[in-house]
């Protein structure tokens, strides 16, 4: 079984919000509700020695997902393909997962009735199509695929770019990786 992951090559990200709005467009998420993707735009250093950093944040698809551990209703679950998702029929809207997620990726939907986060466009993957953000990113900053398959592009690119997860200290073992220049390491934490 494939173990799906996502590589975000920040050297290609220009912070255009294409993925942020694209995700809402594809999934029909109303305006005013928190989306599944948000954009980080920050600087390090002091003027004029400045570095600026822009990149998207979403569910990190952890191998050890706290949102699943805390859910008492089996609404947060890990599918056979390793994808963390929410079973909307089981979710009671207790919001526990939103507090448990160290990345702040879980949001509440339908007026707080149900939890939601990025599930790699699970319905598209089952049809053999990559997640929407991956296909729509104007600069091609996303690579999606099986991170266990040495032949896959993502496997090679993660290795080649020494990509790493955001805030590894949480020890949740994300399947979303960030690649970029040297200074990125300090930003990712």
């Amino acid at each position: 079984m494939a173990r799906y992951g996502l590589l975000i090559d920040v050297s290609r990200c220009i912070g255009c919000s294409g993925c942020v709005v694209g995700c809402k467009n594809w999934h029909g998420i109303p305006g005013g509700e928190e989306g599944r993707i948000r954009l980080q735009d920050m600087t390090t250093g002091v003027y004029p020695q400045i570095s600026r950093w822009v990149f998207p944040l979403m569910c990190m698809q952890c191998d050890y997902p706290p949102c699943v551990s805390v859910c008492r209703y089996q609404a947060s679950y890990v599918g056979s393909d390793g994808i963390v998702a929410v079973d909307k029929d089981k979710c009671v809207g207790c919001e526990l997962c939103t507090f448990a997620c160290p990345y702040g990726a879980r949001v509440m939907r339908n007026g707080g009735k149900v939890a939601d986060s990025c599930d790699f466009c699970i319905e598209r993957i089952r049809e053999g199509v990559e997640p929407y953000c991956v296909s729509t990113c104007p600069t091609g900053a996303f690579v999606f695929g099986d991170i266990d398959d040495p032949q896959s592009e993502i496997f090679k690119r993660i290795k080649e770019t020494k990509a790493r997860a955001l805030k590894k200290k949480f020890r949740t073992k994300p399947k979303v990786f960030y690649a970029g220049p040297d200074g990125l390491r300090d930003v990712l934490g």
Partner: protein
Amino acid sequence: MESERIVPTMCHGCSYGGYNCGMLAHVKDGKFVRVEGNPHHPLNKGKLCAKGQAAVQWVYNEQRLKYPLIRAGEKGEGSFKRISWEEAMSVIAEKIKETKEEYGPEYIMLSKGQSSGWAGLHQFLWIRFMHALGSTSFSNWGPSVCYAPQLMYHKQLIGGPSYARPDYEHADLIVEWFTGGGTGGAARGGVETLDTNLRSIPLKIIERVNKGARLIIINPQLIALGANGRVSRWLPVRPGTDGALALSMIHVIIRDKVYDKKFVSEWCEGFDKLSAHVKQYTPAWAEGITGIEAREIEELARDYATTPRACMRVSEAPQKQDLRSFAMAVPILMAITGHLDRPGGNAWFFPAARLGFSTLSNRISSKARERVLGGDTFYIKSSGRHSAFFRNVIEALISGKPYRPRTMLVFGSNPMSTARNPALVAEAFKKVDFTVVVDVSKTPTSRYADIVLPAATRYECYGQPGIWENHLTMSHKVIDPLWEARDELEVTLDLASRLGMGKDFWNGDHRAMVADFLKPAGVTLEQLEQSALEGIYLPRTEWMDRRERYEELFKELPDGKIQLYNTVLEKEGFEPLPTYVGETEDPLSAPELSNEYPLMFTDEHSAYINHHSWMRDIPWLREIRKHAFVKINPATAKKYGIDDGDWVDIVSPHGRMKAVAILFEAIRPDTLMSQHGWWQGCDALDLKETPPLQEGTNPNVLYDWDNRDLITGDITKNTMVRIQRGAPPEEVLPVREGL
């Protein structure tokens, strides 16, 4: 329930009417539900930016203009009554006839904005409409302060039909010179000037940078294009001083003899006079003006000159009073370094065919041609007096000199937000007898209309073709127009028929018009309709891919050579060489203002999530940035007791605007940057409309209408300000549709 049906079309996000990104519109049960990029479209290859992704919310927006309206209160008030299309159209036709008979055709004016693009079907049709009436009072309003003035200098200096654009795909050094740009080079595409859309440019730059090309950004703020380690050198230039920087680069390049001697001797005239002239512009001199260290200027100049494949994009952003020094120095830089029309430099790009039909310009009497507003200026004369000059139009409306147009048709233009000095624009509009505004949104400009007509979005319109390089394609109707919106093209054809000009306008047959428009490409409408998904690729011409086409491109120039010492300008009584003047409102030239107004101010062009004054009513886009903003360095903010997210007042000698402070480390501490185009409310997010004039969210109230470029009239967007915490702006009731 039907499954989703897919209609291939083109995006409306940054303009419509011409060539834009390819889009697949998903329709379900008759409703436009979502979009994705069209993978067969060579420009965007299946990708879409945020604006394009928000198409559905743009179409189904309850804040849109829905019905034809007639004024029910004072001009400017925004009180209207609903009327039928039939009533509206017959009133408009009657007024046009009256004006023509009573005053003459030139008293009928038509203006458009950037919304429908520059050289597309809409522009052709509207110019033809005016010419058929016998009027030359056509005016493109937006570019009066950006694209066109700089282009005038560019053409006077180095010829060619348009800008020599960066050939990113082959460049080893990319200079993004974009004073005032928020997103900078990350956005320009098929058309030269639109920096508000993503199109193909960011990808080209990034591909190149990832292959080792160096990226230099000259901008008071570090734009996102330079984020994530991409920028190799960021030069935070003092706003408005780009001319000094460019002239100093010329100084270094000539002093160090790193110019292209062969090119200069074969294709340039006046080099010795230029050399003598720029001796004064030493890097030490420029450091004091630009805030960029002399050493950095030296390195930049040599780097640009000695990198064989170096390109530069300056675009329309240098909107300044001293446009001249900059707009002359830049093409000189490209020329003397031998970077013109060479791979990886700045080259002229041509499409395989130009679409269009006759604009019936032979219908214009020489008397009418003489009467073009602004026609006595070199600027309008040099462009053949094809259109009136925005500044002269506004001033003529107010003063009645040389004459006041009586009837005005405004298509997709919102100068009450986008033009400098909106108070002056308002005054001008109040003086027009009869104004029609056709738009998708209830803009502040529509408040001054006598009749307002609801325009359909591109997704509700029949085909609009466009060409980019050799790819020809067209948009297709996704759904029927909502409410009572109508396609502007059909409105124009209808109006032409009502005025008895049907014969010149295909007897109102929209398809026949489009077919005619396609003729120069040798493609029929049926062929294009049949290839809705992929479009048609015309053969690439030898001319498109050839470089160093100097003989042809310089042929309009005196002696067929680049005029480093410009004899044409000299004959007109202007200085033949670029002399740095600077901005009137700059602490260096107005130290007496510094106590009261200690900071420099300018505004960004546009951003990825909105387009000029459009699209603030789209929840998906607006929630990313809810309020008009001003970027301020944290050190400066601290000094004035301002926190991130505070509402602030920004006060210049000319006005006061309000904005939310964004504390941003990557901006010059002596500079504030805001963004134009903020006026609109967003009902879904409970955000209210703001006043278009003073105390609103419009940076254009801060600038001086009279601080403008000598030749082109380009009005400055540089001034001096103070900043303090303040209350949020008052709420303004949106345009009321009455009953």
